[in-house]
């Protein structure tokens, strides 16, 4: 769908103010940033996290009383997919040293490190290996690699500031110190980062960075990292066994309280099977497909927050789940691309955000929550300067043509090949026409509590990546998540292996924690037929469903 005639008219206005805006950008005259105390006000008034009625308290489990999004509480206050009494745990289908649940960046990194330290690994994942949010990351990965202008010190400050100063300091320290090493590791594995002719890694700004420290591989940084890690995992088949279309349903414990593996569901044959492991790494990623507050999302199909459910039922605490990250710029046009992420790099490269009157209204590199809130404010009735879309929504313009004017013709095409081709499919040339954007559900800021060794409170259970919470505090900065998953994925793989060597499993396998959780639900008066983990979202047609007279759905799954 090319732009409609109405939108084309509005684009003309953007074109009018563009030359002056380019000039200002060239001179370094930026739109003023929002002061810290002012930030808070905007967030309170416009950020979806603060919308009244958008949260409720969890009634069971280790975080009883903690108020988070309804959609997350819904999956936590839900029953298991299985009746624990029906599962025969004496029949073990797979036995391994390390079980890794989830085949994204964190899972793959954990698998490689575990294997490297001598463990036999089983990596089981819901869809295909690499069907994950990691694959979708575009913008880049932060690391303070530039001597003379940057250091882990500034990276630390930026992470804390972005996260509202409540991040876990030990996790942040680990993140910023490991960052350059992770970059070295990836370079060694052959990931093709964008470089200058002398080998210097190209870097850019991202929201909330004080130095240009966002490393990238074209505009498909996550895909480059993911496909490299996936290739390497597949190159070690004797030690790393990969099971695809295998979804973890529950963790399995020993009666002595250790994690001993997990119960899985084969999405294709629909059978359940038992994996016994000396140590387990949860790396199931985020939860965008829960569509919190009915927001559109950037996340992959399997991002349904399963790991939160598994860990929580087994007694692991949640942290920082009360904030959700909305990416400031998701596409709202054309309809087919709705929700898709338009990377922050566009703003890092110089594109302005402008309203329907083609005026700037916000500095382009505020932290994400602030940036998103400012866009929502612009589109709200209070200001009323959103650009109306044909589907009745509002957005603002992201003025990508500025980039070619600032950095030379062809820059958009060479630096953003992925988005270039995507929009060309819809007859939109983003080096000539701006994009229409609005905040979209993007990232689960919090998750299961871990320490800097990726240990959870459950012995034998490690967690890494988007499923965990703490390092980003209340708000993650762009580029720190790819860094998080590679850094802590590696640490989890290593520490799980050390644990497996040190400790042996004692006692009988059990799903007693699930029985207990069910009892706790009943005690708390939660009467529900909800089932979790969700596994896949439900996008089937309700009209068709009504006619499926003999079909049974368990939760969202047929």
């Amino acid at each position, binding site marked *: 769908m090319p732009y409609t005639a109405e939108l084309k008219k509005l684009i003309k206005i953007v074109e009018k103010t563009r030359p002056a805006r380019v000039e200002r950008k060239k001179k370094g005259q930026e739109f003023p940033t929002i002061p810290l105390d002012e930030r808070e006000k905007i967030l309170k008034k416009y950020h979806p996290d603060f919308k009244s009625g958008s949260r409720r308290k969890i009634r069971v489990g280790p975080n009883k009383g903690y108020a988070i999004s309804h959609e997350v509480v819904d999956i936590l206050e839900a029953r298991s997919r299985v009746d624990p009494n029906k599962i025969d745990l004496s029949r073990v289908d797979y036995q391994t040293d390390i079980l890794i649940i989830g085949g994204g960046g964190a899972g793959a990194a954990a698998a490689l490190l575990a294997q490297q330290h001598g463990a036999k690994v089983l990596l089981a994942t819901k869809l295909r290996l690499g069907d994950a949010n990691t694959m979708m990351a575009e913008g880049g990965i932060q690391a303070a*690699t530039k001597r003379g202008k940057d250091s*882990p010190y500034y990276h630390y400050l930026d992470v804390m500031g972005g996260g509202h100063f409540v991040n876990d300091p030990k996790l942040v320290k680990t993140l910023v110190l490991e960052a350059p090493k992770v970059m070295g590791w990836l370079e060694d594995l052959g990931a093709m980062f964008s470089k200058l002719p002398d080998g210097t890694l190209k870097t850019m700004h991202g929201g909330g960075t004080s130095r240009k420290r966002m490393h990238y591989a074209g505009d498909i940084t996550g895909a480059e990292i993911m496909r490299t890690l996936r290739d390497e995992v597949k190159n070690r088949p004797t030690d790393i066994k990969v099971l695809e279309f295998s979804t973890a349903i529950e963790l399995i414990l020993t009666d002595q309280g250790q994690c001993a593996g997990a119960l899985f569901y084969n999405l294709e044959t629909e059978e359940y099977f038992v994996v016994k492991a000396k140590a387990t790494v949860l790396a199931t990623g985020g939860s965008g497909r829960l569509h919190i507050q009915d*927001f559109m999302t950037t996340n992959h199909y399997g991002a349904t927050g399963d790991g939160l459910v598994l860990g929580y039922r087994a007694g692991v605490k949640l942290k920082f789940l009360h904030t959700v990250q909305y990416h400031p710029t998701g596409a709202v046009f054309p309809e087919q691309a709705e929700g898709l992420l338009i990377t922050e790099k566009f703003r890092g490269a110089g594109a302005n955000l402008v309203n329907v009157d083609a005026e700037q209204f916000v500095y382009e590199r505020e932290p994400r929550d602030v940036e998103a809130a400012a866009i929502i404010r612009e589109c709200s009735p209070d200001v009323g300067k959103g650009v109306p879309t044909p589907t009745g929504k509002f957005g603002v313009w992201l003025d990508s043509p500025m980039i070619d004017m600032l950095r030379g013709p062809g820059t958009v095409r060479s630096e953003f090949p992925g988005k270039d081709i995507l929009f060309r499919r819809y007859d939109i040339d983003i080096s000539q026409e701006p994009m229409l954007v609005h905040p979209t559900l993007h990232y689960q800021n919090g998750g299961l509590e871990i320490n800097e060794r990726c240990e959870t409170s459950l012995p034998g259970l490690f967690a890494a990546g988007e499923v965990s919470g703490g390092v980003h505090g209340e708000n993650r900065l762009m580029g720190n998540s790819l860094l998080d998953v590679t850094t802590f994925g590696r640490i989890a793989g290593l520490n799980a292996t050390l644990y497996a060597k040190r400790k042996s499993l004692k006692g009988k396998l059990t799903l007693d924690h699930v029985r207990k959780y069910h009892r706790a639900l009943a005690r708390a008066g939660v009467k529900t037929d909800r089932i979790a983990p*969700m596994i896949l979202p439900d996008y089937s047609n309700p009209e068709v469903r009504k006619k499926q007279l003999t079909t049974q759905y368990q939760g969202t799954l047929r």
Partner: protein
Amino acid sequence: MVAQRKGKKRTEQTGKQSEGKKNLVPIFIMGQKYMVPDSLTIQKAMEYAGYQLVRGCGCRGGICGACGTVFRMPDSYRVEVGLACQTVVKPNMYLAQIPFFPANKAIYDIEKLSPTGEVVAKLYPEVFKCVGCNVCTKSCPMDIDVMEYVARAIRGDVAGVAELSFDCVMCGLCAARCPAEEAQYNFAILCRRLYGKYLAPRAKHLAERIREIEENRFEQSLQTLMDADEKTLKELYKQREIEPIMAEEDWTPEDNSFV
């Protein structure tokens, strides 16, 4: 959530109720006719028709390569291909998904390879079987000149393969249609990794920075931050100097005590 939301119609990606009238067009999924809104992608159209996708659906955003699809229009003998999550339905199209293709993947230890054409030829001897039919290029949803990178592989130009294939989403459509049974995307990633590891100039600043970290050069400055109270931290945060967006690579901050 599941129970509460049952029966509520969502348009995918948005989670919002869909409104307005739809213009329905016929499509043929594996030969069966269904009426679907003409604005949907093939992926969403299949869901609209009643499918619950397990295979053939990953990122829903054109980057994971899970949703390779072949289709044909009734007035043509030509077989076309595309990504189901990116291709909008066309009236009367006949389609089927190819979510998996069993292409050959060589197993190797990247540490022990050299970045040469011989290595590629040894691991993937089939590259020489290319007959130059150009079907792969015509099939590629990412507009990659696949035949050209195959030719580069034959010539032993590892860097050329790496560069030309950079946008590959490994959907397998090229391999599925190749008469010579090539595994284009698998030797392409081999070349990219060889290039990234051995041929691209190494980042010297990175190696030096890693050495500094191993020498514990930042321990002390980080410790002061970890010990600082929130007020001090906020002050330091506010005062930190911001590198200007148009600054050149050699920009340095005024205060260089912590770099």
